[in-house]
């Protein structure tokens, strides 16, 4: 027998569900009517059509305008993933250091870090991004590029590094080295086999095809050859890392402060130094409190990376916008965008969630 409150809850939930379904139905119907009026059809066949546009940063995923739109989207996805992965790792590292420094006994250091964190944290990310992008334009033009080491050039076209052309035997050598090093312990007294195998593989690979190092050269407008780290990537990465690390530093500070004072005192009583206390007692405990929040920060970094289009970095959103504009399939590209960002976010959240569960299983939690 149900109480009146239960019945009311069921009624309200049913009503909510009904309203949601009606809104979804209305949106879908509206969309299909509007599309039919314009003679447009939904479908993903356009992904196989040639892209007919060029992409700036493609790394080693070769891309030409004759390739399909699907491939262009993969390049965009890779760029988004690259920025997100690098950004997440760097933001956690920088944020960790900043958070610990905020707790330093030195008031000048503490104040300095606090000021930096507050400035970055209270500035809109887009502003920071545009500011950094504009600052990188102040670098010298390619003809007056800074070249601290031979083959390395820093100009307003980005950081150009020498490319290492890897032959097939070089890959064999690397694999042999990895296998030899992992087997080293098991080999026991015959440990010399490992370095010998490496040396042999190195000899063969050098003989067959020495790894060529291609340095870039200025030809016409730009550097040709080598690997270019574009200013857009640098600005985007720097802005994301700065912005997110400011937030992460607060998380770290809060987590460290949440560690009961008694544990520190106990560590002190055992004769541990400040650094030892931090490293062996405080941080392992604080880590458990901060991991879920770090996951949240990583997820928001991934989503923030979609601001890339403002400064011209070809991330997923930028390429999907172009594809949607050019083919008229805006709804499909929007769907792809939603699915990809949702998957990326869930992936990161679940990975860090597992790490968190692992932490919780091993050792004590706070309080």
């Amino acid at each position, binding site marked *: 027998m149900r109480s009146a409150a239960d019945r009311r809850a069921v009624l309200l939930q049913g009503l909510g569900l009904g309203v949601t379904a009606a809104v979804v139905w209305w949106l879908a119907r509206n969309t299909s009517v509007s599309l039919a009026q314009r003679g447009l059809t939904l479908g993903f066949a356009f992904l196989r059509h040639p892209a007919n546009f060029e992409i700036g940063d493609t790394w080693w995923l070769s891309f030409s305008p004759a390739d399909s739109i699907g491939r262009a989207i993969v390049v965009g996805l890779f760029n988004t993933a690259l920025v997100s992965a690098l950004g997440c790792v760097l933001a956690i590292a920088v944020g960790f250091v900043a958070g610990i420094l905020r707790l330093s006994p030195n008031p000048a250091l503490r104040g300095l870090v606090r000021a930096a964190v507050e400035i970055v944290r209270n500035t809109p990310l887009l502003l920071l991004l545009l500011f950094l*992008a504009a600052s990188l334009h102040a670098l010298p033009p390619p003809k007056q590029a800074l070249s601290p080491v031979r083959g390395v050039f820093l100009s307003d076209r980005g950081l150009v590094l020498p490319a290492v052309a890897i032959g097939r035997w070089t890959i064999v050598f690397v694999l042999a080295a990895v296998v030899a090093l992992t087997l080293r312990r098991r080999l026991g007294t015959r440990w010399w086999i490992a370095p010998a195998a490496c040396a042999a593989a190195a000899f063969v690979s050098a003989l067959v095809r020495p790894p060529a190092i291609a340095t870039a050269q200025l030809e016409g407008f730009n550097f040709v050859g080598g690997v270019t780290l574009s200013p857009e990537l640098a600005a985007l990465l720097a802005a994301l890392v700065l912005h997110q690390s400011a937030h992460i530093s607060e998380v770290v500070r809060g987590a460290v402060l949440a560690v009961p004072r008694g544990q520190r005192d106990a560590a002190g009583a055992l004769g541990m130094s400040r650094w030892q206390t931090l490293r062996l007692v405080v941080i392992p405990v604080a880590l458990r409190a901060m991991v879920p929040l770090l996951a949240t920060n990583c997820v928001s970094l991934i989503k923030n990376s979609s601001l890339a289009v403002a400064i011209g970095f070809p991330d997923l959103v930028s390429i999907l916008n172009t594809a949607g504009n050019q083919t008229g399939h805006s709804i499909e590209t929007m769907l792809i965008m939603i699915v990809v960002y949702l998957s990326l976010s869930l992936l990161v959240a679940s990975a860090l969630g597992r790490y968190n569960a692992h932490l919780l299983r091993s050792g004590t939690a706070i309080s």
Partner: protein
Amino acid sequence: MCVGLGIAACTTESAPGASPNESNGGATPTLSAVRARGAVKCGITEGAGFATPDDAGRWRGFDVDFCRAIAVALFNDPDKVQFIPYTQEQRFSGLQSGEVDLLANGTTITSSRALRQSFHFGPIYFYDGQGFLVAKSSKVTRASQLDGATICVQQGTTTELNLTDFARRNKITFHPVVMEDLRAAVSALAGGRCDAISQDGAGLATTRTMLQRPGDYVVLPDRISKEPIAAVVRTGDDAWLEIVNWVFRAPVQAEEYGIDQHNAAQFAETTDPSIRRFLGLEPGATDGLGLDPQWTLHVIEKVGNYKDIFDRNLGPATPLGIDRGLNKLWTDGGLLYSPPFR
């Protein structure tokens, strides 16, 4: 065109029954509506030189003047026109819903637009094409010299496509930097991040004025795409389409005859029979339109011929400084060619 997220807003335009096609005999429903209203409603898109309000709030520009020409032809008054500014997304919905009588807002004629949507294009009144803006210091004078260059573009419907097609056709390579906002592209060109900006020629002239030292930059003469600009009207009202057709052609024909805003009055005494027919001094040329017999003369006096309109809004005397280029008369090596008024 409202695909994407603004779907809900699009349904209002649907009801094709509301379009003025349910005609009453041979009369043109749009013309009757305009006459009843006492003003033409003209859809424009804001842009320097093409449509901008001046400091007194009066609309000025190349597109605006063509709208005023319609008002003069109908009412002999260049102010009997209401300007409705649209974004590129809203423009077709505005026309289809009957909110405006015509669009004169830089719409390019393309086959897919002409076939997919329910409207007709008027005569081409501006020939544009995608081009390049470069720093003078780069010493680049032709687009083909841009091999290996970094080119900034604003994300748009066909800008990237045209640029890529051009590069593939000419077997050159380029590095695109695709910005969402034009201002970011301008700052990238000024900062030296890009060797060139690529967009429509008229847009480049405007973009050039956005730079701190416009004199240090130059628009290359090459055009890598065809962007024929025409007025747009709804389908199903042929008589209105004819009015738009011939009013847009009159300034071109006037320039060909050497009739301009200042000397038009002198032509009242002319003995040249073709000019007399054109100016309505002799009947027959445009009787079927249902306009004042001397509407061409009024248009020339109150708005001007093509050269007057071009020079006033876009020409070398303006900050835009656009070269006539393809928009010269066919007799001067351009593409402007009006069918005869006879």
